[in-house]
């Protein structure tokens, strides 16, 4: 069996798979990039070739102008992949957002999985995380502290619906990241029986349409910019977090400010954002999911990429698991958690 550290290397701007000369989620342009998912801290423009799932490639085309049809890029459905320089790459569901994948690499009898971002609980907008047995498990740690325990999503959605019904003269404005979180909140609302049109900020429109094209039914969406103020009373409005307290929000009828994010677990964080209705809805694994996943995958070594590495490292130490932190840079999309 090969020694992983001889064929895979961690750099501040990404993970380099040496025999294949492929970078995973590089934060600067490279010749060949394998990309786990479409968020800006993992997917960038300017690479020579991009290898990703079809959905991720479509998202990169929409957001960063990557040419999904170009012959130098390649799309691989879940379970499939490619071989290069003796390394076998394959993509497996990560449950984070539409198209998100863990990347499995097999080389000289050794298996390494890079998770990108992931979560374990159900999400109507993307395929569910699959446990992929491996020797080295490279995990994220956004919520790698035991204070982060996300409550059931259905409770948070019920809270949101309760807030709208309680004050029919007001709208509830939910700050939700434009890729993933917004569509998930909409889909969860539909699942909970919210049939009314949902009003969206223009910045969410294209991504919602892309989700619909990929079979995620979001029901009727209307643009805030094309709607009378009065019509949105007693309704749910979604916008990117940056629009929450901005001038844009003045076109809504007396909005209650809500925010859907795992960070909302901590009261001071929610207060800092001037949020009146914190919704703990996250696309990242919480502490219990992170630690249970490591236990379940049961790798020989755990490498931790970004987030609260110290907390997860400490847990590994307490459970006699070999672990190290990789200290990647540029992985700090707080808004997206």
């Amino acid at each position: 069996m090969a020694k992983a550290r001889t064929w895979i290397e961690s750099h501040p701007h990404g993970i380099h798979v040496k025999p294949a000369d492929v970078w995973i989620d590089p934060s600067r342009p490279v010749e060949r990039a394998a990309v786990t998912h479409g968020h800006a801290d993992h997917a960038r423009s300017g690479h020579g070739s991009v290898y990703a799932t079809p959905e991720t490639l479509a998202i990169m085309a929409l957001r960063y102008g990557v040419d999904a049809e170009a012959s130098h890029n390649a799309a691989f459905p879940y379970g499939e992949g490619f071989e290069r320089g003796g390394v076998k790459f394959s993509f497996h569901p990560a449950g984070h957002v539409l198209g998100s994948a863990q990347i499995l690499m097999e080389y000289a009898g050794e298996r390494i999985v890079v998770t990108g971002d992931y979560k374990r609980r159900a999400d109507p907008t993307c395929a569910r995380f699959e446990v992929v047995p491996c020797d080295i498990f490279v995990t994220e740690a956004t919520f790698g502290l035991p204070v982060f325990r996300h409550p059931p999503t259905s409770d948070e959605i019920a809270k949101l619906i309760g807030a709208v019904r309680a004050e029919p003269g007001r709208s509830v404005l939910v700050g939700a990241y434009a890729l993933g979180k917004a569509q998930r909140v909409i889909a969860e609302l539909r699942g909970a029986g919210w049939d009314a049109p949902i009003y969206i900020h223009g910045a969410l429109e294209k991504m919602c349409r892309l989700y619909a094209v990929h079979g995620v039914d979001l029901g009727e969406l209307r643009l805030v910019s094309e709607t009378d103020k009065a019509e949105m009373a007693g309704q749910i409005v979604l916008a990117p977090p940056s629009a929450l307290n901005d001038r844009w929000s003045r076109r809504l009828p007396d909005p209650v400010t809500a925010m859907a994010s795992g960070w909302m677990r901590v009261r001071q964080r929610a207060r800092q954002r001037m949020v009146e209705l914190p919704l703990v809805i996250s696309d990242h694994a919480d502490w219990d999911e992170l630690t249970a996943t490591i236990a379940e995958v049961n790798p020989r070594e755990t490498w931790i990429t970004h987030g609260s590495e110290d907390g997860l490292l400490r847990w590994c130490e307490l459970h006699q698991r070999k672990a190290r932190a990789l200290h990647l840079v540029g992985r700090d999309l707080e808004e997206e958690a």
Partner: protein
Amino acid sequence: MKRFAALIDRLIYTRSRNSKLALIVDYLKHTPDPDRGWAIAALTESLDFPAVKAGTVRALLATRVDEELFRLSRHFVGDTAETAALLWPEKPLPFRGGVGVGHVDGAQPVEPPPAATREQSSQVSLPSPKGEGGLSVSEAVDALASATRSDAPAVVAALLDRLDADGRYALLKLALGGMRVGVSARLAKQAFAQAFGVPVDDVEELWHAIPPPYAPLFAWGEGRAERPDLADVAFFRPFMLAHPLEDATVDLADYAAEWKWDGIRVQIVHGGGETRIYSRGGEEISGAFPELVTAFDQDAVIDGELLVRGDAQGGEAASFNALQQRLGRKTVSKKMLADYPAFVRVYDLLAAGGDDLRGLPWTARRRRLEAFVPRLAASHFDLSQVIDATDFDDLAERRAGARDAAIEGVMLKRRDAPYVAGRRAGLWYKWKRDPLTADCVMMYAQRGNGRRASFYSDYTFGCWSEQGELLPVGKAYSGFTDEELNWLDKFVRDNTLNRFGPVREVEKSLVLEVAFDSIHASKRHKSGLAMRFPRVSRIRRDKPAEEADRIATLLAMAT
């Protein structure tokens, strides 16, 4: 505990005072005794459990959670109670939300019932008191109150084990204090009055006479019992307040004039063998001024201004700035007592020898007061003098000439008026000194709260140092019209240089004329100055920033 926890959570995220009031009203109406009494006492920081301190909780956590993980978490969260509430290990559950430990792939989890049908999670109504089950607030209070230093950790642990994360947060805040949900004693009393349709003045009086959980108060509020009898209790009487005089004049034959001193209005009450000091909002502040409690040895109730003596003033009243050193303390050191000696300038006598004097006209009360004050220790109490102005113009002249550091203006009191709670038209007027003004340059702006959440409405402004550097001298968020706010907001957005989280640094080009009541030297600020009540009085679009005032000019106005 569920309802209490939900109430706290809602209060944390609710910024408008009226919405906070509505939440508390709803809670008081629909929660049984004694829970609601304990809850309201906790909100107003009126509970203390000597055996349970932050150290108790930290030590307890160390037995359940790895110390390093606690330290990392505490660092991230920034609050011991919240960290402990989130970290406390719950009984091992399968993953909520469907991910089972040991679940491999493929198996679909069982989802909870559709969210919209689950009424108990609704955002506005607090959980129903029925079927609350579990731990009640009063059970928790009883357990905490009877805990000893040695069994406190076990007591707290047993309580935490019975609660969810929000409940644990509520319990730990209840036990440790520091609730910080923006509920003053005044707001709590207003909520009580509103919940039960009783006069807030009555609530003010009764509140401090009855200890938590206030059962007789609720019984009276709900019409189940007579108004509690307050003989022999050091209870609070609501203050009589003044309207601003604006542009009116009064006849000094009808009104007596006194200086308005710039300290804090207090009421000192002796009754039932104890002395208590209350602030204007009815909060008890006896602990911060033990020397006054000891010195006040008469069976009486006085209304006066609490001030401190300053060396610079030759032992006379110092500025509000000096008094601030003594405020907000639960206990006070010997050095504090020596450096900032407090005294009360007495305005009025509300009760003496068991007689309520509030129904008497001011002239009669004043005669009693003048005879009464000499019976108090002169070191700690003196009489507020009536200004012997010949007429209104003479008074105006004296007001304009007053340069005393601690004089804020003039009070005008109708000579035939009784002492009545609150602000009544025509009885008392305050006539503040004309504000000072300075031309300052806007430096930073921050968004406001509530209705103003989308507007940059809080401005930090500065003046020029000798070195030609702009140094911040204060912060203002009032004084402008809605129309001016629109203009200021646009100015900030169009002239942003830098963003620091919620704060924007702007082009140093806009001059604001800032009005303030007084200005003091302050070591806490780089400019060495602190303004009292700064507000924007005019936007000086016409004035170049270089011509704004210099720090030295402001220092010359300092008292």
